[in-house]
């Protein structure tokens, strides 16, 4: 009942990635190769500063994320306690929240002295990326047999020694993976830096945007983009080589029903507060202008009050965001699920195609935005001006999430089930409707919700391609925080509240089993 080759199912996904990433990146690279001066750009002080700042803030952010993420992961992956499901939901939601809105939330939470500081950036990065550590290291630590730890104790190992010699080494490859991914996310951070950065606090992505859009130095921006791409590719190459050497197989264990001790309980409460406090501060901040309580921000956002210099059509922005995200999810979902059928079959061609579809996630959205700006700007591809381009890019970025959500589900459907349906007289369409789709339901809902969330919050690529009459909510938020004055700030906070709540509701509406 399985096709001899499932590769054709991957064709739509491959076409999508070709349009949204591969072709633009080739054109971008070609423009750099043909460019005359790839050296002098590096002598510019703003570029050097951006490179140094990108690296060290990413290192600091990764260190803080790992320090907070590892204990969180251990308690979540080993103990069953009251509120664990809520905690897991929080972890899931934080990762997909729109970056600019989270930047705004930390502006609302942190004291003024920390606004536009490295510390604010590092803290906000940890907020996002703890989720990566929990997701990557959690399954590994969950599979460590309790008796292995018992055994180490009988051999005289103290709790500290057990961490050093058993728990950390068994999680080593997953910890390194999560650290590499966190470093990548922070190195290419753009939305957070747009809000929390400032003079001297620009990353390479900000510099790429500044050169391309503000200075009109497209070739300089392209050189930086290609260099960044090569750097990230090198890191991932080294990282993936390390992963293949792992031989240990793991089985997941049931959670320890023992009571969580007081220390870990307090730690987890602290982390939960770290996740919730910025959002509460954001809501409070949206209700204030200056030192007094006021609804001015909300009134301006809802068009009930005019404010000089702020011309935003919230309804239009919401419509644009909703339209883009629905189209993106509408493309990413069927394309991703079809591709999953190809990738669930372990042919080598499929493995290579599977790697290709991760590409939009492994490249910074700013680089993708710039590449598209350069590629589709001339005949016969002059569809840069088409509004459809943005949801297509969003769908390509969401594609790896859909595939990741669907792969375990598709692999878990026994082929015999299809055969059984066929022997009962069900034709291909009936089998699809009565067997495959009902079984795929969790993957469909997770994939759909994540695609919507990714598209709603996408800022990097969109900031290159957006037009005045079709701005999305993240673009409007970034614009509002770029203006001076209390009312634009309160309006930005209010818009961030809307974006965060909508995204959180979408993700939380997914079947709880999908994320716990």
């Amino acid at each position, binding site marked *: 009942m399985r096709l001899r080759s499932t590769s054709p199912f991957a064709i739509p996904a491959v076409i999508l990635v070709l349009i949204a990433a591969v072709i633009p990146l080739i054109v971008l690279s070609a423009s750099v190769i043909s460019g005359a001066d790839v050296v002098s750009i590096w002598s510019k002080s703003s570029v050097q500063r951006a490179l140094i700042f990108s690296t060290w803030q990413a290192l600091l952010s990764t260190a803080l994320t790992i320090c907070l993420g590892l204990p969180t992961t251990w308690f979540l992956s080993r103990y069953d306690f009251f509120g664990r499901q809520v905690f897991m939901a929080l972890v899931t939601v934080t990762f997909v929240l729109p970056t600019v809105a989270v930047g705004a939330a930390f502006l609302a939470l942190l004291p003024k002295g920390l606004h536009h500081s490295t510390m604010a950036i590092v803290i906000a990065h940890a907020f996002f990326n703890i989720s990566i550590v929990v997701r990557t290291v959690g399954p590994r630590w969950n599979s460590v*047999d309790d*008796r*292995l730890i*018992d*055994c*180490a*104790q*009988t*051999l*005289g*190992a*103290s709790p500290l*020694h057990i961490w050093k*010699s*058993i728990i950390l*080494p*068994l999680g*080593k490859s997953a910890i390194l993976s999560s650290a590499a991914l966190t470093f990548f996310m922070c190195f290419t951070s753009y939305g957070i830096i747009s809000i929390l950065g400032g003079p001297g606090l620009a990353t390479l992505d900000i510099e790429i945007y500044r050169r391309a859009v503000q200075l009109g130095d497209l070739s300089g921006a392209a050189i930086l983009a290609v260099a960044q791409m090569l750097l990230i590719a090198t890191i991932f190459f080294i990282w993936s080589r390390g992963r293949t050497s792992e*031989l*240990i197989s793991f089985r997941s264990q049931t959670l320890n029903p023992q009571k969580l001790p007081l220390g870990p309980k307090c730690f987890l409460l602290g982390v939960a507060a770290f996740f919730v406090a910025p959002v509460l501060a954001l809501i409070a901040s949206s209700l204030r202008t200056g030192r007094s309580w006021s609804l001015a921000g909300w009134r301006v956002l809802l068009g009930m009050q005019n404010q000089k210099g702020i011309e935003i059509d919230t309804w239009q922005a919401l419509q644009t965001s909703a339209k883009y995200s629905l189209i993106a999810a509408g493309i990413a979902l069927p394309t991703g699920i079809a591709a999953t059928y190809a990738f669930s079959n372990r042919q080598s061609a499929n493995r290579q195609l599977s790697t290709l579809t991760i590409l939009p996630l492994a490249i910074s959205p700013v680089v993708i935005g710039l590449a598209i700006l350069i590629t589709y700007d001339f005949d016969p591809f002059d569809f840069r001006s088409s509004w459809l381009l943005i949801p297509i890019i969003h769908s390509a970025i969401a594609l790896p999430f859909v595939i990741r959500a669907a792969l375990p589900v598709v692999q878990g459907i026994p082929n015999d089930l299809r055969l059984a349906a066929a022997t009962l007289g069900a034709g291909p369409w009936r089998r699809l409707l009565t067997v495959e789709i009902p079984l795929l339901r969790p993957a469909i809902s997770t994939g759909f919700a994540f695609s919507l969330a990714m598209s709603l919050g996408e800022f990097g690529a969109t900031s290159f391609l957006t037009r005045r009459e079709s701005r999305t909510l993240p673009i409007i938020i970034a614009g509002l925080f770029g203006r001076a004055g209390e009312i634009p700030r309160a309006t930005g906070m209010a818009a961030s509240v809307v974006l965060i709540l909508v995204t959180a509701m979408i993700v939380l509406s997914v079947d709880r089993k999908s994320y716990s």
Partner: protein
Amino acid sequence: MSLIITDVSFNYGERIILHDFSLEVTTGTTTAVVAPSGSGKSTLLRIVAGLLKPTTGIIILDERNITHTPTHQRSVGMVFQDNQLFPHLNVHDNVAFGLKVSKMNQRDINSRCHELLELVGLGDVMRQSVATLSGGESKRVALARALAPSPRVLLLDEPLTGLDQELHDRLAQDLHQILHLTNTTALLVTHDLSEAKVISDSIHHLQ
């Protein structure tokens, strides 16, 4: 007397797993506790090892009350039913684990590992990954690892489960010999009376 267990009880919620259990194990001998599955044998060993706290009762090891001593300070060795070899360490490093904890110098660690692996008949697999070992070899490594730090008492939890009959019988003989050669004080729990007869010096039936 090396190990004295006095009136040990263990309840899990309302359920009584062990009730007023007492036993004495003489230094240098092996005592077997024989009982059917689900009768609290493994619980008894976990209590002696300090992995579970008894509801009531006292454990004395070499004249020291260890009832409330943390596991890692008790000097007990344990061979688990399914070996529990550390998957990220090779054979040598598994055996060396307890010696490294006790901060022995590297030369002594190497010679002790060599000695023990020779004793259990595995001198030639020292650098192999534990994933490549057969069931019988894994059991032998688990035994060598537990014996390496010279524990005051060795606890054996159904150590020969899951082996085919021929290997089971051979290993039972070897185990008896090794425990005698090393003059180890051991407490064995098993459901198999014939196994207990081969390995141990005295047998205690748990009701």
